């Protein structure tokens, strides 16, 4: 018997998907939070500003950053509450496989949220063409999600073994997310409404790729130690 990392990864991702389909308590909470935040932003700005297009990227990514905190915070809930973590840790699973599986789950949660929230952005905040550029918006979301997923999985795993995890998680996660929020908001603004600056969009997306690679390397270098003791 020789465990194969890809088989292990598929099993762990399938497990998270099955748990979410059965309980539906993470994605639903994230969607509700994100939609409510967008609605509140709309009420907060709507009557005073006639054109919020230039704020659209910021509004979207502040919303998604806080929504991600919810998803990241819940990413180990089943393992913690159902006391399964030791069962996973004594299995011959490379620690990186555990991290990648959690990152994929977080990316999945975020995509589910974005499918609803990105069109809402067009409805609430963007004047001018929107639907023709929605593919670009989703592409930048996807690239940013990978960075959020890796960082989120790393921080969630770190916080898992601390007593003040609910406090520690956003305190560690949100500051490290700032560069990603800036770049993702920039990419959104570059293609939102009448703006169609694909050079700027590409540069921001390259930054997002770099961000994901950087935190991928950090995770690779540190993740074994996170679960060690």
């Amino acid at each position: 018997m020789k465990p194969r990392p890809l088989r292990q990864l598929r099993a762990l991702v399938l497990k998270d998907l099955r748990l979410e389909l059965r309980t539906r308590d993470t994605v639903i909470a994230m969607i509700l939070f994100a939609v409510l935040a967008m609605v509140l932003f709309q009420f907060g700005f709507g009557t005073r500003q006639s054109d919020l297009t230039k704020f659209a990227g910021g509004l979207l990514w502040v919303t998604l950053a806080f929504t991600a905190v919810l998803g990241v915070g819940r990413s180990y809930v089943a393992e913690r509450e159902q006391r399964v973590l030791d069962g996973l840790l004594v299995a011959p699973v490379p620690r990186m496989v555990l991290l990648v599986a959690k990152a994929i789950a977080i990316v999945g949660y975020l995509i589910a949220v974005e499918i609803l929230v990105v069109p809402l952005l067009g409805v609430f905040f963007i004047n001018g063409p929107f639907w023709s550029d929605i593919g670009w918006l989703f592409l930048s979301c996807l690239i940013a999600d990978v960075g959020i997923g890796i960082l989120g999985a790393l921080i969630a795993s770190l916080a898992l073994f601390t007593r003040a995890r609910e406090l520690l998680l956003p305190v560690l996660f949100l500051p490290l997310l700032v560069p990603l929020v800036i770049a993702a908001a920039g990419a959104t603004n570059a293609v939102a409404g009448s703006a169609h600056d694909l050079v700027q969009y590409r540069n921001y997306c390259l930054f997002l790729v770099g961000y994901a690679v950087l935190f991928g390397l950090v995770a690779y270098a540190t993740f074994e130690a996170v679960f060690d003791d």
Partner: protein
Amino acid sequence: MKGYGERRAVDRVDLSVGEGEALAVVGPNGAGKSTLLRMLATLLRPEAGELEVAGCRLPDEAGRARGLIGYLTHDPLVYLDLTAWQNLELFADLYGVREPSARIEDVLDDVGLLSRAFEPVRAFSHGMAQRLGLARLMLHRPVVLLLDEPHSGLDAQGAALLDRLLGEVRGTRAAVLVTHDVERAVAVADRVMVMRLGRVVESVETAGLDPAEFRATYEALVA
């Protein structure tokens, strides 16, 4: 050696369990039994000393050792929101079990849960969940069994099953059983080790040992 702050949870423990041998570790709360077992299970890293499990030096060869270890605690270490089958399918993939469906069917049959295979574990009693934990333990045919209070919460059928498994260990695998139950330790193990305040205070062969007499000795040792 392993400590938590100033306190040494496991201190200068020297033990060796051979193939086919079952060792029971007994002691009062805080004796260091579970910490010792968690170190053997690669869940804790010793601060000093040498550790080898199934021929793998820890922590350097922890990855290889994990594939050879079966670990069961008083929690079944399974997901309550998945079915019994889905849980075992997950662990079969994690351990690289060949022909997983046939093996899952076998172990579920062994623990008497085949008819409940597709029900979520949340619907099980604690005893049934613990029997599923036993199925998870046996799924990948481990060569070293590390059992931390595994009888806790087991129903009579599960306890008998576990005792049968421990009986089978003799001659085939190695087992370390942590328990509070001194009489059971004498009944199922080849050797009983008594721990107190992180140290081994007694280690005796169980052959010919009278459980009642040993309980009196044990109580004097941990008093």
